[in-house]
């Protein structure tokens, strides 16, 4: 047994210590397992299934009606993707941190040269990337193909990308929120309960815009309402939800890092 001089030491220091290795591991849970294919198939069905039904199956059944256009599919696609992705993210994210705490693997990881910020950020980045790629980019491309095929010409890609980008930001908000909750609790119940509670409360508040005039404008639900105008290339009525959701997501991540940094293992 001897020290091997051929080995090159890692260079990461401070908050980024261990980040690269943690990211490699976390990415592996998305891309080197069957989970990847299962997620692709499930989200293909959820996000593109109903638009496909509207665009391709209904015309076969109801031959008397005028042919649907790509825009009909777009409306279905965007109205399903946002809420479904949120619910999916809340279910997926509830255990990201809590599971590691329960299993004791968090304590083992933290006995290595890994900063607590790197632990939290690796979870956030890897899961955000996985969700973004499978639920938003891939499904967006399939939807883009469907709409273009239906209309017989290529759709303008940038407006659709902008709309999907807004939905992705919405997803990031809920992912960061769930992750933050995971740093406060040691079991999944409160994480899932609070996250779903918050989601449904802001959905209800969003419906009460006339009664509570100011608050709903900041709600993430209002971000989803911007997606359709964005996809059609129309000017956005407000950017307030974009700013508030982005700022809140960053805040949640910072709180998660602070909280995780204070916990004892």
């Amino acid at each position: 047994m001897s020290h091997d001089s051929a080995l090159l030491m890692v260079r990461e220091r401070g908050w980024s210590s261990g980040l690269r290795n943690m990211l490699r591991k976390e990415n592996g849970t998305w891309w080197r397992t069957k989970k990847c294919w299962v997620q692709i198939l499930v989200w293909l069905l959820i996000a593109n299934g109903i638009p496909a039904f509207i665009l391709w199956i209904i015309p076969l059944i109801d031959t008397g009606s005028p042919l649907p256009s790509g825009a009909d599919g777009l409306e279905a696609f965007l109205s399903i993707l946002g809420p479904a992705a949120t619910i999916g993210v809340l279910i997926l994210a509830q255990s990201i941190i809590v599971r590691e705490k329960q299993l004791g693997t968090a304590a083992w990881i933290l006995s290595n040269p890994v900063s607590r910020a790197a632990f939290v950020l690796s979870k956030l980045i890897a899961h955000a990337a996985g969700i973004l790629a499978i639920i938003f980019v891939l499904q967006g491309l399939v939807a883009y193909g469907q709409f273009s095929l239906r209309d017989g010409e290529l759709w303008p890609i940038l407006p659709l990308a902008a709309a999907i980008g807004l939905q992705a930001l919405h997803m990031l908000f809920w992912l960061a929120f769930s992750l933050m909750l995971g740093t406060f609790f040691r079991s999944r119940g409160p994480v899932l309960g609070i996250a779903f509670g918050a989601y449904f409360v802001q959905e209800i508040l969003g419906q009460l815009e006339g009664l509570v005039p100011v608050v709903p404008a900041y709600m993430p639900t209002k971000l989803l309402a911007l997606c359709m105008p964005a996809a059609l290339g129309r000017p956005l009525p407000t950017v307030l939800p974009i700013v508030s959701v982005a700022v809140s997501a960053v805040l949640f991540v910072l709180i998660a890092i602070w909280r995780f940094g204070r916990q004892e293992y």
Partner: protein
Amino acid sequence: MEWVIDIQGLSKSYGRVKALKSLDLRVPRNTILGFLGPNGAGKTTTIKLLLGLIRPSGGGGTVFGHDIARQSIEIRRRVGYLAQQPRYYEHMTARELLRFRARFFYRGPQAAIESRVAETLELVGLDDKADRPIRGFSGGELQRLGLAQAQVNYPDLLILDEPAANLDPMGRRDVLEVMERLRQHTTIFYSTHILDDVQRVSDTVAILDHGELVAQAPIEKLLAGSDGPVYTLVLQGDPSAAYSRLTSQPWVTGIQVGQKNGYVTWQVSVSDEEAARAELLRRVLAERGLNVLEYGRKKHELEEVFMQIVEGGADVTR
């Protein structure tokens, strides 16, 4: 002397419960320190404080000169740690787990990392199970994997929390053998309550009780006892005349008489060891009809010393 671990006044409280009370402890380089204490004495708390897994309530210390509260990442770069109840990613194989841990320290080249992993698996005798998922490992295999993952970065300090707990005698022997092999490369700080193991491999012993350090000394010093040199004899025959002759010697401070398998036993406490070595046996053998079946300088068993210290009343060697 170069101290690997140097802590002063370290304390940890959980609410009103004081898990560790002002601990002072120094561990020299390239030694094996057995950290002893009954359950709940504060051993694991101390280890977690050294690794930055928990924060001290008071006091502080350094490991390799790095502050345990503020520079724990730097400390962990030079440490290998085996937890009391280690938990790993069970879907990983032993090789994958070691590779994962190795990459916290090394960025390449891949072949050198793989070689290090293979070498470490061989060291703990897991090379034939390297590609099996961890979830199927027995307790002994898990413990050996724990040692392997702690060792894969060739740490300057190995911190082992109850490394031989829950192992059968063969497993314990294997773990101790691995520790023996590692001692030439690294300082080992390990907690245990298996006193035989401590006696076998440790250079120094620290005893913790109710969150307080009650003894720290080289193992020989601890085993020599604190009540002066004592010689033990097992005798056959009537020892009364020899008893009188011995008690009249100025260097004999006391004789404790007992029985063992029908024979008389003496524990002779002496004040002058040189005189005892030269005279004691000779004076006993001078008595006709008295046979000496066993004779030797008493060496305390660690268990005896430990019980004396923990149950109170013994001199504390610090």
